[in-house]
């Protein structure tokens, strides 16, 4: 295993304590917003694969999220398919969309802000299409039938929903760790560090990047499906809107891009911050976002490597390169 520090272990332990503590919280508020945070954490983990490990910052992860949600919703609403089929199809559709966007952009050598902008444009094109065509429900969006039951992937009991989401998050984090420590992950990190050098070493960087986009797409599609099954209603602004894309990247950057725990920690931290700001300024809608943004700026200033990076500096077991965090 790679080196880990006491700080990082403590941070992870704190997150676990929080997630476990939610079960016993006296107020339903905690579970409510943690459920929302966990869905966002999954799209954040999706962004982390490309943006964190691969250094391919996307502004358009809503394209993957929305495609997953729409694929599943269309199959269920228009073709009467089972929710589980929709679940799988959503993940596949997300992966396909990721691979498509990746293949197209990387074929033409886009990187940096050009890649960021092209993903943004794809998300916008998909948003416009989704609100214009009949089979996506047009402007009315798509509404699943309310029918709680395991077969329909809908749960009346929120504790069950929460547990299921925790399980999904754990699986995605496990997969992230697998990717990170695999040969593929090493190649991907090499692409981030120096793409030309990676290519010179014989790595097929194009294939690696497209594969990363496909994996990211699968996670992103998964997040979209989770949202759909949770709220049973989607429309083009809700799932293809730029708010999703922003949430996807903000969590990993605050938590620590290119780490396994970063997206979860960042997303949880930001949601806690948002909730705290709301309670601090309850009668001034809007000002809570101002407070949130100010703290965000400070976090960017004082946590250059994100929460995980900061924690890594506390009580490191071995002194290694800074990049070697969790």
């Amino acid at each position, binding site marked *: 295993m790679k080196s880990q520090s006491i700080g990082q272990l403590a941070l992870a332990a704190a997150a676990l304590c929080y997630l476990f503590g939610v079960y016993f919280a006296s107020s339903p508020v905690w579970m409510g917003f943690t459920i929302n945070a966990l869905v966002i954490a999954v799209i954040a983990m999706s962004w982390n694969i490309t943006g964190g490990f691969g250094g391919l910052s996307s502004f358009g992860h809503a394209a993957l999220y929305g495609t997953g949600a729409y694929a599943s919703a269309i199959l269920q609403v228009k073709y009467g398919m089972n929710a589980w089929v929709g679940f799988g199809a959503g993940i596949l559709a997300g992966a396909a969309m990721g691979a498509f966007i990746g293949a197209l952009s990387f*074929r033409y050598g886009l990187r940096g802000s050009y890649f960021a902008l092209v993903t*943004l444009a794809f998300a*916008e094109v998909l948003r416009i299409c989704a609100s214009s065509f009949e089979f996506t429900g047009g402007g009315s969006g798509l509404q699943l039938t309310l029918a709680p039951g395991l077969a329909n992937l809908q749960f009346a009991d929120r504790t069950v929903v929460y547990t299921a989401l925790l399980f999904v998050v754990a699986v995605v984090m496990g997969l992230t760790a697998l990717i990170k420590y695999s040969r593929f992950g090493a190649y991907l990190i090499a692409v981030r560090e120096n793409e030309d050098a990676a290519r010179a070493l014989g790595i097929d960087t194009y294939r690696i990047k497209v594969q990363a986009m496909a994996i990211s797409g699968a996670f992103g599609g998964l997040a979209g499906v989770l949202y759909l099954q949770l709220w049973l209603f989607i429309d083009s602004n809700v799932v293809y809107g730029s708010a999703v894309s922003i949430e996807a*990247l*903000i969590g990993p950057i605050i938590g620590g891009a290119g780490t396994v725990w970063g997206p979860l920690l960042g997303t949880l931290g930001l949601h806690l911050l948002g909730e705290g700001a709301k309670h601090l300024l309850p009668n001034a809608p809007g000002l809570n*976002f*101002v407070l949130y*943004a100010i703290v965000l700026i400070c976090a*960017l200033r004082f946590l*250059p490597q994100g929460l995980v990076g900061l924690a890594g500096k506390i009580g490191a077991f071995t002194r290694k390169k800074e990049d070697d965090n969790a």
Partner: protein
Amino acid sequence: MSSLIFPAVLSGLMMGAVYALVALGLTLIYGVLHIINFAHGSLLMLALYAVYFLWSYFGVDPYLAIPIVLPVFFVLGYCLQRGLITPMSNGSEQNILLITLAVSMIIENLALYFWTSNTRTADIAYAYDTVEILGAFLPLGRVIAFCAAIAVAPLLWCFMAYTRTGSAIRAVAIEKRGAELVGIDVNHTYAICFGMGTACVALAACLLLPTFYITPQVGYTFVLVAFTTVVLGGMGSLPGALIAGLLLGVIESLCGLFLGESLGQIGIFLAFILILLFKPSGLMGRAR
């Protein structure tokens, strides 16, 4: 439908001029600082409010507000870059992006808090006046904005080409280290550039107000199109932004006419994707 093509092209050009005006500031900032400024839309909104309040409280005509609003926004932009973005970003591009995002969140929500979400429109005497060109009626405010865009882009270009500050900005844009070595204050130059970009957006606000409405969210209405304009024109190219803005206006107008206004929006973004894929340096940009 065919009889509508000519007026549609004209109104597209008029709208395109507004896109160009908003994009001029953005391309200036991108070309030098290489940052995607997400606060641009919010700054446009802020400038619109400034112009609106000058008009409603002091009776200052939006066009006469130009000499008041421009310097104020130049200073605002300068301070924003020097006082906030540079010190808070640790020099990382990703952080700069998030900081501009946070800044836009702050501006927008403060506007919401202080000025409420009410839509405001300036009921200026000439708001409904039109100019007739070959049988097509064009709103007077749009025609003025069009002329201004045509005039301002070359002026800015001349400023960049022939003044000392302009040369310094270009030097920093091309080679930051080298510029530093020959004694150019890079942070000052960056801030000047951001200030100029912000002043451009204030100019756009003065020209836009007579024909548009204001809400705290109005910035979003233009920000994505402005990004597209910048990319299409070539990031950092001033004449490019002008041509791209006009072109996008026409594309949008014609797509709207033939595909319907809802789906027609797609024209802009498809153009965006195609240009990114096939000619990422844009119409007038330098090769990367």
